[in-house]
């Protein structure tokens, strides 16, 4: 058992390595927190921070998977719609009296299937990632409307189901714990498994990846299926939180998720994936929204501020990298 200790230090070394790559976003995040602490006495309180955390997990969980997708040189625009459909399916099943665990499993299987179809279209039929998932997004949004008739499914007051998004273990919200566990699992996959290596190899140089014997189609299907799975998981948490499934849930999430991933230092060109950066990226977006609310700034301005934050964070990163490569 003595061998496990140095191994763990290995994972933590990798975390530090990630910090050095996505430095811009960490600095931006700290500055942001400092500014908000000064501007609003309510910001730096345990209650408020937990609120932020609970609001952020939905984007963050999908962001973990998106980190793999983007690190592989792909993109998935269908995650928001997958989230909504999986949430709605679970809600319908629960309202029909199906066992909570069965209902949740059904959603996870459905999400995985949707992702696998994305992967199949991209890897086997050779569609570009953008177009395949854009089409999928549109199809899923349509199915949701057909399925729900545009009306939310309300009334999911089922304690076991509510616990996932509303419960606490000690002082810590359950969704935060789930997110932390998923983060560790994803970090392990990325750093310590062949799948993680292969994802970055494909993102870095697909021709070379093929010539070292990587089954590119298989890896792509797995990664997109994983992305669908995580979107479904996020959909379950959101439904549990709202005790309802909204037909328009997750609209615009795909862009928030991609933004969180990219400002976290994962390269849109592929080959570079930074999971911890994605965590910070999602937190930046959450903190900004929270701060704007605390400061009672007109909602119309929120998008402007968030867009600016994205540009600034990515800009800092680009500049620091240009300096490094010189």
């Amino acid at each position, binding site marked *: 058992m003595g061998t496990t200790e140095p191994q763990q230090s290995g994972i933590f070394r990798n975390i530090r390595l990630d910090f050095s790559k996505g430095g811009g976003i960490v600095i931006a995040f700290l500055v942001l927190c400092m500014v908000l602490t000064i501007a609003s006495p309510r910001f730096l309180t345990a209650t408020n921070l937990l609120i932020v955390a609970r609001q952020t997990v939905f984007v963050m969980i999908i962001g973990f998977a998106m980190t793999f997708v983007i690190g592989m040189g792909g993109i998935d625009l269908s995650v928001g719609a997958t989230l909504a459909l999986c949430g709605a399916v679970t809600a319908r099943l629960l309202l029909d009296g199906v066992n909570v665990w069965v209902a949740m499993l059904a959603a996870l299987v459905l999400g995985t299937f949707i992702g696998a179809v994305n992967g199949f279209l991209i890897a086997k039929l050779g569609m570009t990632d953008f177009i395949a998932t854009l089409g999928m997004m549109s199809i899923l949004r349509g199915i949701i409307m057909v399925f729900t008739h545009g009306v939310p499914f309300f009334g999911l007051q089922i304690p076991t189901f509510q616990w996932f998004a509303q419960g606490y273990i000690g002082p810590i919200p359950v969704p935060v714990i789930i997110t932390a566990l998923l983060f560790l699992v994803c970090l392990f996959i990325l750093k310590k498994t062949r799948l993680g290596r292969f994802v970055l190899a494909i993102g870095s*140089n697909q021709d070379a990846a093929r*010539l070292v014997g*990587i089954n590119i189609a298989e890896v792509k299907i797995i990664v997109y299926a994983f992305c669908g799975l995580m979107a479904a998981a996020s959909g379950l948490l959101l439904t549990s939180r709202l005790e309802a499934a909204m037909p328009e849930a997750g609209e615009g999430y795909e862009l928030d998720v991609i933004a969180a991933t990219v400002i976290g230092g994962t390269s849109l060109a592929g080959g570079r994936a930074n999971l911890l950066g994605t965590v910070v990226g999602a937190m930046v977006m959450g903190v900004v929204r929270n701060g704007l609310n605390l400061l009672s700034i007109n909602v119309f301005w929120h998008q402007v501020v968030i867009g600016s934050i994205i540009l600034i964070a990515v800009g800092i990163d680009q500049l620091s990298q240009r300096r490094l490569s010189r």
Partner: protein
Amino acid sequence: MSETISNNESLLEMHEMTKRFTGVVALDHVDLTLSRGEILILVGENGAGKSTLMKILAGVYRPDEGTIRINGEQTEIRNPGHAKELGISIVFQEQALIPDLDAIENIFIGREITTTFGDSYMGVLNRRAMVNKANAFLEAFATDIDLTVPIRELGLGQRQIIEITRSLAENASILILDEPTAALEDFERKQLFDFLDRLREAGIGIIYVSHDLEECLEIGDRIMVLRDGKKVGEMAVHDASVDSVIEMMVGRTLAEQYPKVTASIGSDPILQVSNLSHRKAFSNISFSLHRGEIIGFGGLAGSGKFELARSLFGVEPITAGSIELDGKAISGNLTPQSAIQQGIAFLPADRKSEGLFLEHDVQYNISIANLKALIKGWIRGAPERQVAQSYVDTLDIKTPSIHQMARHLSGGNQQKVMLARWLFAKPKILIFEEPTRGIDVNAKVEVYHLIGEIVKEGSAVIIVSSELPELEGICDRVIVMHDGMIAADLPREQLSQETIAYYAVTTSGEGPNGNH
């Protein structure tokens, strides 16, 4: 400013060029002169100062000391744009043409001839004028390239010519060519050389940087050798020989440029290929490969040699025939994945685009093909580092650490990383495509030694090469391909560059032609 012109013909004089980088002297009082209509060969090992000197000329670096005269007039080259104005143009190894545009559009890109609105964005293109001008220009140099097809449909040699033409259309009088033939086949090289001859007649001064000494001596007028930032030799090409230039470059005599290792060759074939056919590149190929053997494949571009090698690794599909490994036929479709599982490794010619993960480190690049060996539940970090470090040590890969990005290594060291990757995977058969393309003399010899080590250990090697001396020098047997068929299967006793070249251009049975 005309009082000290030493030579009327002098197009360019660089005098006492010195450049230091934080304590390191990259160039140490180097003189360079170039006359009109002269091809000056510039050679030296990596790090000898060639590229620093050329970057000064291109306006990228400013020299710390020294003077530059162009057409006898002293000048300072302030920046790359200024270099262009002075008529200096560099054609890089990596081509800067846009593959989807045709030659005309590429030649005039950024300087389009227009009918109205001049060079504003709304300028209306005058295609006919550009076609006429380009035609007039290329006709003068007697080339017959189709200027109206997308660049991607042209051969690499033709692209090179188009790229040079673009420079000339900008009125360049000094042309710098950096490894212009590195990716070219022999016949393309000849095409390019004919073109360069014409440029020489037209009075263009050319500085030609290359690792390939044989071709340097073929095309050049004068040769200049740099070593450790100093000029160590300069002579007319007809006074130079490959051996003497190498001696100057490396500062010592290389006992053997092509060290041949003869390993004991096994009796049963490790690979038996029978009647292998490809959709169009080759048909009916049969040969066998034994343990300890190095087989070379020669032939022109289009002879099918590259496709054949790639089909053995499952990259190119085969339409008929069989492949037996250790006496067992391979069932089903061969893919790179299954080829690797059965002990075949493949090192592509284009290391940057097909071999390396450039933005990943040395360790990542070495372990990627055999991660299974590092897994005990998950990928273990310590053994991975040990493996990478041990290959860096034994192959003498020059890198600050195993965490250096592959992009920052020299060509020779990149090839060694590729070798390390496959040695770690412990293959039975290694297939090399152009194993020493674009790497310097010392690194070449090291690669040949490593190939020798591989066969001594009992593996077998296939080398596909366009370099005749390499085929002659290190192979036990050379199979020459012509038009998708085997033209000759030459044992070591019969190997010579002339015979290989002869069979590469003639199908056996046809009448022989020119032999030197």
